[in-house]
Each structure stands twice: as C-alpha cells, then as structure tokens.
C-alpha cells in the first residue's frame, strides 16, 4: 500500500489484559517500541490520554484497562515495519505478557476465628490474608519509605545537576542489574525489571531534565518528578495501577540515596532473630533487602493485593496480612507476634493459648502435607488398578524440577519454541545442548519428550522471516519448515541427541501429516547419529522417536507410521480444530470446537485403538488432558500417558485414583452414542458422583492418647483428623457448624462420652471420628461427669447416603448400651477400636468398600 510520508500510519487495538496495561506489560511494550526509530504514540480513546509508547511511565499513565480501545500512531522512517511488528507484538505477545507473576490471587476473605482462639480471649486484629502461611516472631516496626516534600538545596548550574542525575541513574541501573544477575524467581525478576524500566524510562528522564533546565537542583527535580508521576498513577481508576505508585516512590528515594548518600538514607532494616515486619506499606526493593532467614511474616496497613510487595511476598512464601488498621501504631516494637495469613488474623500478644493453638496447627499442617505429597509421589492408578501416567508440559528447564515436585511422572511435552522467541538469532547448539541436558538430568528417573521447534501459524519468530499467510494454521508451520530451515533443525536435533547421553530423552516432531515426513525425520536423525559417531560424541542410540497427532490424516495411516516410530502424543487443540474444521479463535464457530463432541470422542477412540493394535505407545498433551472432567474419557481410551500443566498434576492424579477404569469404559460408550456435545457434558456432569464414596469409619479417623485439654481443643482435633484425611477442605467452617449444634444443648452424653455432630457440606464425605482423651475434660454433660471418649459424627447436608445414615442411627442406639460403651472404654488402639466398631455396627461390606455410589435411595 503506497503511503505519504506526511501521513503517519495508525492502527487500533483493544486491550486484552485483565489488569490493564500496568507496569510489567507496559515496560515490555515500551522496550519493544524502543527498537524503532519512528515516533510512536498511543491514545486511549476512553479517556483521551495520549502517551509516548516508548515510555513505560507514559503508557502506564494512559490508564489503559481491559477492553479499552487504543490507537497507535507511528511517524518516521521505519513506520511501515514498525507498524507490522508492533501490531504483531500486541496481537501475540501482549496477551501473554502478564502471566506467571501474579498467578491466581490467593487472597482469602476474612476467616473464621477458631473456637480455641475465640475462647482464649486473646487480643486479635483482622486483615486480609494475601500470602498464605503462619509466622511467629518479634515485631519489627519500620516507617514507610517516603519521598520528602522538598529538598532544601540550591541548584548549581544545570549541566552539573544533570550530571548528578545521570550518575545516580547509572548507579541505580547497575545495582538493579547486579541484583538481576543473581538467581531468583520469575516474580522477583519481573519486579526488578519493572523497576529497571522506570529507571530507563524516557518520559521520566525528560521530566527531570525539564525541571533542571527550569532551575531546580537534581534532588528537587527528582522529588517533583516523583510527585508528578505518583499523582498520575494514583489518579488511575485501576487499583492495579494505583499500586504502582509505590514503585515510582521507591525509585526516586533510591536515586536520592545515590545523590545524597547517608544523609538521605532510609536505613536498611536489619533482622537478627525471627521477626515479623510491621509497616504502613513496603517498597519492593526494601522487601528484597531483608534477611529472609529471619523474616517470618509481614503485617502491612496499606498494600494493594496486586502491589509488588505482595507479589514478592507470595513468590517468596512469606506469610502476609494487609489492611491491618493502624498496625505500625498499635503494635509495639519487639512484641511477640503471631501472623495467621491463612485466615487473616494477627495476634499481637502471643499468649500461651494462642501459641499452643498454632503449635498444634503447625503439626497438623505438616501431617497433612506429608499425606498429600505421599499420594502425589505414587504413580497414578485408578481404583480398579489401571495405571495412567501423568506427566507435565513445560517450556523451560527450570520448570522440570517443580513439575516433578508436583508429582509429574516425567515431562510429556518440552516445548522448545520459547528458546527461539524474543531474540534476534537462534540459540547455538551448545546453548541448546546445555538446556536439554539439564532438563533430562532434572527429570531423572523419568523421561523428557522434547518436541522439536513448532513455529509458524500462531507462533511467529522474527529472525526466521517466515512469510505472512492468509491461513497460517493450514500453512507453513511445524515440521513443514524444517527442510527449508535445515541448519536450524539440524542444530536442534544435534543438541537433543547429544543431551540424550545424560538422561532419558525422547524426540517428538510436530505437525506431521504424511509418511514421507516421518521417513525424512528418521533419515535426518540417522544422518546426525552417524555424524556424532564419527566425531566420537556420545549419545543414546535407543532414544525413542515419536510424532504429535495433530493432523487427522495421520489417524488413517497408523499402520504405516507405527512400523516406523515408537510413540505418539495427541495434540487435541490442533487436532480438534482440523477435525471439526473450526477456528477456535472465531467466536461465531468456536462452540463447535468442543473436544467432547461425540464425533471427536469416536475419533480419539479410533486413534488410541489403532496405535495399540500396532503395539505402540500413545499419550495426550493437549488442553483436553488438563481438564479433570475429561479424565473418565482419557482413562477409557486406554491412553498410556497424559501430560498437562504442572499445577494440574496433583489434582489429576488424585482424581484418577478415585475413578474406575471399568465404569469409565461404560461411560465412554454412552458418551460416544450421544448425538450432541451438550448431552455428553450433561452425562459427565451427573456422573461426577462416580468418585468413590469413602467408608464412614476408618482407623485413621481414630486418635488415642489425645492431649487435648478442653472441649475446644478436642473438637478441633477431631476436625483436624478429617482434614488430614482429606474429608474436609474447610475445617474452620466445619468447626463453626459443630459449635452451632453444641449451642443448642451440650452433646455430652453422660458415662464419660460426648458425641458432637453436624450436618454440613463442609465435610466432603460422611464421617465418624473418635478421640480417646488422656485427660478427662468437662463437656457440660447431663450427669456432670467429665468426658474421656469423644465421637464426632459429620454428615453431608445435601446428598445424604441412606446406608451411612442407618449406620449412624445404629451407633447412636448402641451408645445407650453399657456393654458397647465398656468395649470402647477398654480398647486402647485405633485399629482395635475401628475393628470393634465395624463389628458392632455390622457395617455391610459394600459400605466399607469404595464401590457404593451415594444415591440416597
């Protein structure tokens, strides 16, 4: 398209980011924009603010929120290429530039104060828990970092003042960069990079220089610039952007420190013992400067839930409660404090009762963690014994270890595109070799399936100069580009083959549609193996070779392909899109694209059966495998492995253990017989109860020699038994309903027995828990006798199970029987008690086993 140099080019976009264009995405966008010569400006049509696109601060100040329509104006010698590149950046990279840092907001609403704490009358303050955990330590009260109102200092000549600023900016830049060079979490790096972007921001520097030219001293110019940008950000309607004002202030204060040294020092806080930091608010670098060995918790009066301090606290796992009114004023320096950032409470006086409660809770959480991780480490297997490996999808070597820590049985998909993106040349063989080798070592004893570079279509790489296409999904992508970019592919393959000497690696090619491609792939690998052999470079000759099933054509040549390769992995995102001829990004047809469409389910069955008939291995690494709802389908298909986002691995494994392969197979036949996807979804929804019903009684719900000293502690201990056993996820709520019942009249039965009970969906499974106390405690019983045996009955409110209810009724009746009570009093061992109860209550086998379904018949 011809254009006149006087007519700038322009394009529009709609902001896709849920938190708006705040510091991190804005700094990345500005960084990208700085790569062009043209003048670039962004106008937010909602508020009319125009900003220099090369300035992070200016972009932030434009207050661009999700859904805002913006126009970008480009004027200059490289305007056409700038337009194309920036447009592409906004379409493809911007939507992903706000990931990973914040993660799921884990802030919880105000918790329920546990009964033992309530009755201890300990002084308690409420706040918002933003980073979970429990911390205990001495209060270290620090005053907030504040920009001074004025710097009382006359300016010398502007050139000299400017040099002072230049030096300060350079020094701070170096300091942040050296912090960045240490190893740190993505959250820490993200925050520091955002700070670096402010230091390097053109609008920030322009503003300071302008003030200096107007006769201000360096310090005064900094103070006024800081105030200017702070008020700009604080004027934003988005909390997220308002939270960024702290960052500007910290940068300005740090720069003042560079200029004035100790004279303007905010003095680093030194911790020498377990400490809870109490402050009005906290700046990110202030937090990073604290000695984490001693930092046990944060209590802040003001801090946005999206502020960098909170993001960092979450990433560093520091228990944090914010919104605690007047915290720095009312909490005395040196006070022993408990921060309960699971519930949002602060106990300014660590009284004996409070400390005892949290000590018990600490042990409880340890027990629960132990049980969860124990189950997490076991291989995934259905309750009727069919195993289904659960692996993880990753994009970098760093993610491998955390995936395994989550219980992943290997890496089912190592995407390599990220190694090639966001840089101006491809990574070298050595660089890639180191990455693949590290990944293989970190995954041991499991394997890593490395997918060779999958680009084109939705994943462009600037340095490859791939052509623009009208229909990229059907075009030049995945394996199809390898022949032309042979050097790139060769380098990657060599790196992978060399890394195979260091661990279990499997090679997988994307977007294969014909047998010729498979044969070409094999020949390339064979050639490279010969080459390595000639060069005496070691590699594993048995490395398995596989392909993605993304193109439907492969499903019809399985017999031919199976004789050539070792394994397949189904990429459901592309496969369903090609199979149903639906562009998932096109809202008008997107609803046709469900992977649970009966036709697609039949297609998957055809593939899984076909591969297995030919004696090969088939997994799935698409989004379909990440959704627990699909698990019965995936189990029934008989897949050898599924690979999903690492965070999904624990829940997938847990759910698999509660499903039956046999029932899943019957379910899949029903689903494949459906005529529409709605019917499939409805059936899946209604059979959610296929999850095994757990027995009412279990030895792990019985505790003997309990050290509980009060009714409060005994009830809590019983509920904690349910919590550790995974029978409740909301122990505080369960405790509350038990106490609501207790308020009607005491459940002390007499004869030394008490039977607290409730009906509430806060319990996931109907349960009986039993406690034998070492010390008899008062329960307000009818016969005034203290209690030594406590039995908790917790029943679900919404889906009563008739069988369970009958057992409970029987238990209640039996408790009226002296012989039965004596039996319970006599027994001192959890297993014996469990045995005795089962026998006395004649619990039918089907209620003890895991096969009954809560039908309420």
């Amino acid at each position, binding site marked *: 398209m011809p254009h006149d140099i006087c007519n700038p080019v322009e394009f529009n976009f709609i902001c896709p980011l849920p938190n708006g264009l705040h510091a991190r995405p804005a700094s990345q966008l500005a960084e990208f924009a700085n790569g062009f010569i043209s003048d670039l400006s962004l106008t937010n049509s909602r508020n009319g603010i125009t900003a220099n696109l090369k300035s992070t601060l200016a972009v932030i100040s434009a207050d661009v929120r999700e859904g805002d329509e913006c126009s970008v104006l480009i004027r200059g010698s490289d305007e056409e290429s700038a337009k194309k590149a920036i447009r592409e950046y906004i379409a493809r990279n911007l939507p992903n530039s706000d990931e990973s840092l914040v993660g799921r907001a884990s802030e919880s609403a105000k918790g329920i104060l546990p009964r033992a704490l309530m009755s201890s009358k300990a002084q308690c303050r409420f706040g918002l828990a933003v980073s979970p955990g429990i911390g205990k330590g001495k209060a270290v009260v620090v005053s907030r970092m504040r920009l001074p109102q004025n710097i009382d200092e006359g300016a010398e000549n502007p050139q000299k003042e400017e040099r002072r600023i230049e030096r300060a900016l350079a020094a701070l830049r170096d300091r942040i960069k050296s912090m960045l060079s240490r190893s740190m979490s993505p959250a820490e790096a993200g925050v520091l990079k955002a700070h670096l972007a402010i230091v390097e921001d053109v609008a920030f520097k322009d503003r300071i220089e302008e003030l200096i030219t107007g006769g201000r001293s360096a310090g005064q110019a900094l103070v006024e610039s800081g105030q200017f940008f702070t008020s700009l950000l604080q004027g934003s309607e988005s909390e997220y952007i308002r939270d960024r004002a702290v960052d500007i202030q910290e940068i300005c204060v740090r720069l003042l420190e560079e200029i004035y040294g100790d004279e303007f020092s905010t003095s680093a806080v030194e911790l020498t013992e377990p400490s809870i930091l109490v402050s009005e608010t906290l700046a990110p670098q202030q937090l990073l400067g604290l000695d984490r060995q001693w930092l046990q918790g944060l209590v802040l009066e003001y801090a946005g839930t999206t502020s960098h301090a909170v993001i960092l606290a979450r990433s560093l796992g520091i228990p944090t409660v914010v919104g605690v009114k007047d915290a720095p004023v009312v909490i005395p320096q040196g006070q022993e404090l408990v921060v309960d950032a699971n519930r949002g409470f602060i106990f300014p006086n660590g009284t004996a009762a409070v400390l005892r409660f949290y000590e018990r809770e600490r042990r409880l959480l340890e027990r629960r963690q132990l049980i969860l991780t124990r189950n997490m480490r076991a291989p995934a297997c259905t309750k009727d014994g069919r195993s289904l490996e659960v692996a993880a999808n990753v994009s970098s070597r760093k993610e491998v270890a955390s995936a395994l820590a989550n219980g992943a049985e290997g890496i089912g998909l190592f995407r390599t595109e990220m190694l090639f993106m966001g840089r101006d040349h491809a990574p070298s063989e050595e660089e890639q070799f180191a990455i693949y080798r590290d990944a293989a070592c970190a995954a041991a004893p499991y394997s890593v399936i490395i997918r060779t570079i999958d680009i084109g279509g939705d994943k462009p790489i600037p340095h490859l100069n791939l052509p623009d296409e009208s229909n990229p999904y059907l075009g030049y992508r995945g394996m199809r580009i390898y022949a032309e970019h042979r050097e790139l592919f060769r380098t990657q393959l060599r790196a992978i083959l060399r890394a195979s000497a260091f661990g279990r690696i499997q090679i997988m090619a994307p977007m294969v549609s014909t047998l010729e491609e498979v044969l070409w792939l094999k020949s390339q690998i064979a050639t490279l193996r010969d080459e390595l052999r000639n060069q005496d470079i070691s590699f594993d000759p048995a490395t398995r070779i596989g392909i993605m099933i993304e193109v439907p054509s492969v499903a019809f040549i399985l017999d031919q392909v199976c004789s050539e390769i070792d394994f397949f992995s189904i990429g459901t995102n592309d496969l369903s899109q090609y199979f149903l001829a639906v562009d998932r990004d096109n809202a008008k047809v997107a609803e046709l694209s469900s992977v649970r469409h009966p036709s697609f389910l039949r297609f998957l069955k055809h593939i899984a059966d076909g591969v297995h008939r030919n004696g090969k291995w088939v997994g799935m690494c698409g989004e379909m495998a990440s959704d627990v709802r699909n698990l019965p389908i995936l189990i029934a298909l008989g897949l050898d492995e599924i690979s999903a986002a690492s965070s999904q691995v624990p829940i997938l494994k847990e759910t698999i253990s509660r499903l039956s392969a046999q029932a899943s197979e019957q379910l899949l036949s029903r689903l494949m017989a459906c005529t529409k996807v709605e019917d499939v979804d409805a059936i899946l929804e209604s059979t959610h109860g296929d999850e095994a019903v757990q027995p009412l009684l279990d030895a792990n719900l019985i505790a003997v020699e309990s050290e509980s000293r009060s009714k409060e502690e005994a009830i809590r201990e019983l509920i904690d038994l349910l919590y550790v056993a995974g029978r409740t996820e909301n122990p505080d709520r369960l405790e509350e309903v038990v106490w609501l*019942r207790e308020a009607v009249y005491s459940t002390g039965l007499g004869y030394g027995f008490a039977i607290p009970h409730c009906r509430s969906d806060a319990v996931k499974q109907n349960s009986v828990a039993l406690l034998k106390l070492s010390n008899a405690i008062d329960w307000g019983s009818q016969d005034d006798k203290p209690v030594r045996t406590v039995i908790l*009955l917790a029943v679900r409110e919404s889906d009563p199970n008739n069988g369970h*209810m009958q057992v*409970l*009724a029987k238990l209640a009746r039996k408790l009226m029987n002296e012989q039965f009570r004596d039996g319970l009093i006599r027994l001192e061992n959890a297993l014996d008690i469990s045995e005795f109860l089962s026998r006395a209550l004649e619990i039918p086998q089907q209620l003890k086993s895991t096969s009954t379904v809560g039908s309420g018949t």
Partner: protein
Amino acid sequence: MKIVAVTACPTGIAHTYMAAEQLEKTAKSLGHQIKVETQGAMGIENELSENEIRQAQVAIFAIDIEIEKRERFKQLKIIQVPVQEAIKNPVSVFTRIQG
C-alpha cells in the same frame, strides 16, 4: 399398656435414635408394648400407622423440634418431653404416664 412414641432432635442424626433406643428398652423392662417413630435426617422411619395410633392408650413425644404429621395424634393423650430427658431418665417419662 400400648404406647406409641415419636422422637426428633435438631440435627436428626444422633439424639433422635438414642431416645428411641431408651424408650424401647425401658418400655420392655416395664412390660409395656411400644412402637417408636423416628423423625431424623432421613425423614420419618418406622412410621406409625393410623391403626397403631388408634389402638394406643398414650403417645410419648421426645422432641426438641416441631414434628411432621402431628395431627395423627389428635385423639390421644400426649406426654411431651425434651429428647434429653428421654435419654437421661426414661423411667420417669413412663412414670408420668401413670400419673
């Protein structure tokens, strides 16, 4: 004596059945014939028929909450006690029948 009874407690999973058990045991030891209907979490169990109610001389209600189908007992003498009393001191409940 022929007695009918109904037990019902707030949660309906424990005291309802304990009271029923106590009433049945005590009636037997005192030589009475009794049928106890429970109104618990699973609704009405061991439901009293019209005929059984008609033949009974007295009804015992060991209840902490209002019960279902109370109108069935319109013609009958009713002894009403809290559930806890039936559990703790069932004999005295039966003494009140005589009185």
